[in-house]
């Protein structure tokens, strides 16, 4: 089974060692300066050196902060409908020297042949924007409600749709912002679940070996024999239609982690297999430490960095999986709003042709995934200097 992994393992280490051998002076001087730093500080310093990784981390943090304040940043509620403004194209923000920021008004046209209503921007009219306006109420921390929004039209009756509106006249920007809460947290919860499953089963499997190990490995093999998307599709299709949204949300995170944990478990098992032969484990055992103490006190801290790296690298996959499943009408469904749910609107050719801005959520998905990839890559390089930079 492990034939496939054979040649790749000795490679990267050898390359890194060689690169060090060719330029012996630089690392040595750095060693003196970093003498006395803890391992965590060393990793942090190495991470900060990668510019792309830091930028990725900042973008990721920005996305999560935005999601946290989405209700305030969004001018409207996710399901607030403007019945007279269906399929409005994105209005760009302009700046007027006296009046401040404004958007152009909208002109409604009805095609005499197809009876299709379309909106065009009316450049003669200006709708001024105002900051901190009152709008739809939303809950804050579950304790109280607020109706304060970062910006909105100066006249409440006028709509401002920076990214356009959809079939039901809902503001796309607000939906993208509020949808990010679902899309970004579902990956987070899914990763945490697979971390718990993967670390417990991986560490136990590596530490005890024998029968337990065999069962866990067989289980992993069976799960890995399925391609991810079809398996996820089959599992999510089994969710009853009448389930409340919160339960569907939780069920999807569980389904996503069904496959996710196997990667972590395999890797951790390998690490623990090697570590359990080390002297410090023997020493702990001789001193009478229980298995639980050895695992939690001695082994888990050793592999902690590894776990964090794998978790970060697993995030983009989780986000994409949720998006793909929701896009196929198998994942989250209205009234929940996620980026995948938003993309459902862009599914058919007709709406893609007439209302291309419905595809905009895709840009946000790609941006966050790209940022996560850079971030995770840098984290891995920092935590594991022997891993050759590909």
């Amino acid at each position, binding site marked *: *089974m*492990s*034939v*496939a*992994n*054979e*040649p*790749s393992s000795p*490679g*990267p280490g*050898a*390359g890194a060692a*060689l*690169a060090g051998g*060719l330029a012996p002076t630089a690392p040595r001087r750095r060693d003196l300066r970093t003498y006395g730093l803890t391992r965590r500080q060393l990793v942090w310093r190495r991470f900060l050196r990668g510019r792309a990784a830091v930028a990725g981390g900042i973008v990721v943090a920005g996305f999560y902060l935005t999601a946290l304040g989405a209700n305030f940043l969004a001018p409207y509620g996710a399901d607030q409908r403007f019945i007279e403004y269906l399929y409005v194209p994105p209005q760009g923000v302009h700046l007027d020297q006296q009046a401040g920021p404004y958007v152009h008004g909208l002109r409604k046209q009805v095609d005499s042949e197809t009876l299709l209503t379309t909106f065009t921007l009316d450049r003669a009219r200006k709708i001024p924007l105002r900051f901190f306006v009152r709008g739809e109420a939303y809950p804050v921390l579950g304790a109280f409600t607020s109706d304060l929004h970062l910006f909105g039209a100066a006249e409440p009756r006028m709509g401002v749709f920076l990214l356009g509106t959809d079939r039901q006249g809902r503001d796309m920007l607000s939906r993208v912002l509020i949808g990010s809460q679902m899309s970004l947290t579902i990956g987070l919860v899914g990763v945490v679940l697979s971390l718990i499953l993967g670390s417990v089963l991986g560490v136990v499997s590596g530490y005890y070996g024998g029968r337990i190990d065999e069962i866990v490995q*067989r289980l992993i*093999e*069976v799960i*890995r*024999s*399925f*391609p*991810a*998307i*079809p*398996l996820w*599709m*089959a*599992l999510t*299709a*089994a969710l*009853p239609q009448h389930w409340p949204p919160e339960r569907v949300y939780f069920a999807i995170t569980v389904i996503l982690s069904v496959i996710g944990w196997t990667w972590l478990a395999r890797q951790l098992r390998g690490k623990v297999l090697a570590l359990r032969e080390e002297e410090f484990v023997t020493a702990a055992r001789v001193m009478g430490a229980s298995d639980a103490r050895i695992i939690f006190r001695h082994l888990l801290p050793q592999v902690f960095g590894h776990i964090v790296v794998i978790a970060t690298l697993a995030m*983009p996959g989780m986000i*994409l999986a949720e*998006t*793909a499943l929701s*896009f*196929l009408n*198998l994942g989250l469904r209205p009234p929940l709003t996620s980026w995948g749910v938003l*993309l459902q609107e*862009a599914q058919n*050719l007709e709406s*893609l*042709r007439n209302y*291309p801005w419905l*595809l905009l959520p*895709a840009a946000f*998905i*790609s941006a966050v*995934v*790209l940022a996560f*990839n*850079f971030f995770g890559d840098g984290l891995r390089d920092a935590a594991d200097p022997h891993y*050759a*930079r*590909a």
Partner: protein
Amino acid sequence: MIAFVVRRLLAMIPTLVFVSIACFIIIQLPPGDFMTSLQALAASSGSGADKAAMDNLRHQYGLDQPKAVRYIKWIAGFPRGDFGYSFEWKRPVRELIAARLGLTVLLSVLSLALMWLVAVPVGIYSAAHQYSGTDNFITALAFLGLSVPDFLLGLIYLFIGIFVFGASVTGLFSPGLADVPWSAAKVLDLSSHLFWPALILGLGGMTQLIRILRGSMLEVIGQPFVRTARAKGLGERVVIRRHAVKVAINPLVSVMGMQLPQLISGATILGIVLSLPTTGPMFIRALTSQDMYLAGTFLLFLALMLMVGNLLADVALAWIDPRIRYQ
């Protein structure tokens, strides 16, 4: 070598048994069965469903038997090529899936070939000209390719097809050509309809391969045997092509086993987005209508494709890398 392949094949059998059981259980997960979803459909369209007729149908399809019995019956048919009966299409599953599975395999193989055709030269170039403008450009592009999922690329492809070319980009044939007999024009039409999906499908894997090959090339180029080759006066071209690439290509083969699941997953979802007659569209329909034998057989065959593909990747690796032990 043959003993190695036989051993691997034998080891696959127990896994396959577990996988088939898992398939059956997953397909049974939704509450109710095909008849209940039929009933729900009938109720929504206003016509009341006759309970007796439903039970009659249930009995006819064997849905009233215990699960274990149904599983045994279903799986016992496989060696004979009998995969059960599709309730929705009222035809044997085998007739329905043969062409679709074939097309999925064709699409996957095509995209694998494209992946390698592009990734190998680009990766080598990128490594041989490390940190040059082109190399940096390729690296940036590779990261971008990694971040845009295939179904989104599919949507963008549809989008471009409509706006830029105004052409039909869905399905396998241009309208009007689907029902005419095979001709050169039809084959050309088919390949043009398959090329872009295959490229989209392979893009993620391609960027991965480029990055891996670049890394492994850089590592190999620094090794003593390459220095020796240069020292004895070989041209750079020969050093790279004859000495470095031969060693550096190995990780690419071993990563193929990891890329297959992505490819099969991608082919499923891309088939749905571009409405290609691959497994995707029919699989998702079978899932939602609880057409259990059809859905289960699809799932099982997709898993089988993956397992066989992994086996082939391992064999290929053992073939090209003599350092591998046939344990």
